[in-house]
């Protein structure tokens, strides 16, 4: 791509911002306007990341630059959109569901139900309009945000706001469904999840798109866990085959809080997930699980970072990837143990299965340790299906193609089985089978 074309892409986003800014929520809050300007300014100076940057070495976003995505697609509400969204509901998880169509809250498709006292589940855009002061301390934090995160702040229109007051426990998972229907749309979704002391919630953040549509999701989710709070978060990325997905989850954890993340990536032509958590007080724990399954010419990248800033923290990271066709996977997992973070216990593992000669994986587990009393391990493997296992299955009458599918399925299923929500597990198992070559051969397993 020529320098001029790159500048054009940047200019386009800036012009687009000038066009849509007056209609974005939070216009009455000066701090929000400043945050948007600062985000835009960062983007204007830095532009899109290039593969010369360490954190983007293996992932080129040139394809995103080439498209003329527009920030503000017109909202379409119709019976067909309702059907499309409905296909992705979890029947057994009807209690709390917020649906966003092309980045805008859809009250008609949502069933927010009656959450317990002290729990707020609603559109972030609505809160930005009505009571923006509640959001200032959170939305102004930039932390580990990438330039895409800053772009999100400049453009963000809507997403979910989940606030749990002290001690509030929501047993039912909260399903946030983002449906993309408009070709050419840039969807800057922004979610904010705040769990006050001792609160407990399970969130399913779910991205789906209409096949045949090329669009760009640029999502940021911020999660704050106060003392003793627990947030379990499942991100299900099932964007359309031509979609682009840049997503970030940034977590700030306080004393004795627990964060569990499952990041399951099946979709999109190009997907990148940045997941970061920082332990701001003692006794925090974080579990980051992930699965990426890619084929064709898909590119899927996970970058994770865990900052053990305070003592006595525990982190467990477990990512698996299955790559077929000419797809490419990237896993970069950084665990930083800061000087004060004694008694840190960190484990990180990344296993990859390559199903074809054309598939590729770049994996970089990284430990940076500045404390001495710590227990840290990490490792990564890249392999193909095991001939001895295939022969064993065949010697029991299982056809070779079925044996191969079965082994790939079992490899990936290991991550899905760590999710505690049965209907989500069941749905993901089906999706997994549909994504594996010859998956129909073992459909009774899903």
């Amino acid at each position: 791509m020529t320098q001029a074309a790159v500048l054009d892409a940047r200019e386009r986003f800036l012009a687009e911002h000038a066009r849509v800014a007056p209609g974005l929520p939070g216009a009455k809050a000066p701090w929000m306007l400043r945050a948007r300007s600062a985000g835009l300014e960062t983007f204007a100076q830095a532009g899109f990341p290039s593969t010369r940057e360490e954190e983007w070495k293996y992932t080129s976003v040139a394809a995103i630059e080439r498209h003329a995505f527009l920030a503000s697609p017109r909202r379409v509400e119709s019976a067909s959109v309702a059907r499309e969204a409905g296909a992705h509901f979890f029947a057994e998880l009807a209690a709390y569901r917020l649906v966003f169509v092309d980045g805008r809250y859809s009250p008609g498709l949502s069933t927010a139900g009656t959450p317990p006292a002290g729990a707020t589940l609603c559109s972030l855009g609505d809160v930005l309009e009505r009571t923006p002061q509640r959001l200032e301390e959170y939305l102004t934090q930039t932390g580990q945000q990438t330039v895409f995160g800053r772009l999100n702040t400049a453009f963000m229109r809507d997403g979910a706001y989940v606030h749990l007051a002290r001690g509030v426990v929501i047993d039912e998972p909260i399903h946030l469904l983002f449906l993309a229907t408009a070709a050419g749309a840039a969807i800057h979704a922004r979610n904010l999840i705040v769990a006050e002391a001792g609160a407990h919630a399970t969130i399913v953040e779910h991205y789906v798109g209409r096949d045949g549509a090329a669009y760009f999701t640029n999502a940021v989710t911020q999660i704050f866990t106060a003392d003793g709070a627990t947030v379990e978060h499942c991100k299900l990325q099932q964007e359309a085959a031509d979609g682009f997905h840049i997503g970030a989850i940034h977590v700030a954890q306080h004393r004795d809080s627990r964060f569990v993340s499952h990041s399951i990536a099946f979709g999109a032509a190009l997907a990148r997930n940045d997941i970061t958590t920082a332990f701001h007080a003692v006794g925090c724990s974080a579990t980051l699980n992930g699965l990426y399954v890619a084929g064709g010419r898909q590119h899927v990248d996970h970058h994770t970072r865990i900052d053990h800033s305070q003592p006595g923290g525990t982190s467990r990271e477990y990512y698996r990837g299955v790559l077929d066709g000419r797809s490419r996977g990237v896993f970069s997992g950084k665990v930083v143990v800061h000087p004060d973070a004694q008694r840190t216990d960190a484990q990180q593992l990344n296993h990859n299965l390559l199903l074809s000669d054309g598939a590729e994986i770049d994996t970089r587990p990284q430990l940076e340790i500045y404390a001495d009393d710590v227990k840290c391990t990490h490792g990564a493997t890249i392999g193909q299906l095991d001939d001895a296992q295939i022969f064993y299955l065949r010697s029991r009458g299982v056809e070779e193609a079925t044996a191969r599918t079965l082994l790939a399925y079992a490899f990936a299923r290991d991550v899905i089985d760590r999710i505690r929500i049965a209907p989500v597990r069941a749905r993901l198992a089906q999706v997994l089978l549909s994504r594996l070559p010859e998956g129909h051969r073992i459909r009774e397993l899903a």
Partner: protein
Amino acid sequence: MDAMLEVRNLQVRVAGKPILAGIDLIVNAGEVHAIMGPNGSGKSTLAQVLAGRENFVVTGGEVRYRGRDLLAMAPEMRAREGIFLAFQYPVEIPGVSNVYLLKSALNSVRKHQGLPELDAVEFLALVREKMKLMQMPDTLLYRAVNEGFSGGEKKRNEILQMAILEPALAILDETDSGLDIDAMQVVAAGINALRSPERAMILVTHYQRLLDYVVPDHVHVLAHGRIAKSGGKELALELEERGYGWLEAEAAKVAPAAPGPEAS
């Protein structure tokens, strides 16, 4: 009547080295053959070649199974046609439950034979009955295939699979290795329960120990990739007393080019 298995002048190489240098073996229905021999004699290779392991290259000879060319059949076809290999080192398959494998295996064999698939109730009743025979707890059914199983549990699991699949020709590759005496008796009882006039068995073993419990009709001794000596069950006892050295020396005279070590 045709023999169940006819091996004629079978020659096999692994990584360019000759391992089997011309094996002749006839196995009839109802017979139990023991194949003995020192380490590296090629006996495990023979077992795996018969089951269809693809990293062995057959360079000469032929194998007919029930009158058909066995070497032309894919491993899964051999299994469906009634051949079963109990592995010396049963493979762990994380994420695939034992019960799923048993069911897939049984149904693939039944389907091939034109029999209806068993429903869940019939299947579980059958499996539970056979597990009792093998003195295996039900919990092993729902664990991943062989994952975290003890050596003895793995070997019992092999015989369990055999008991459920009821093969026509069972090949047991060092099923006795690594078993304590109690486990040996359980495994031997499982094997004996399957002896029948319609079924043939090939027991590959290094020691005579298993043959105290499963008494063979014929004993063959492999050395340097050939059958150096065949006889009745008393040959096994002779080997127990005299070791393999005298037979190896005789075989070496016939085959001066010593084959490499056993590949598996």
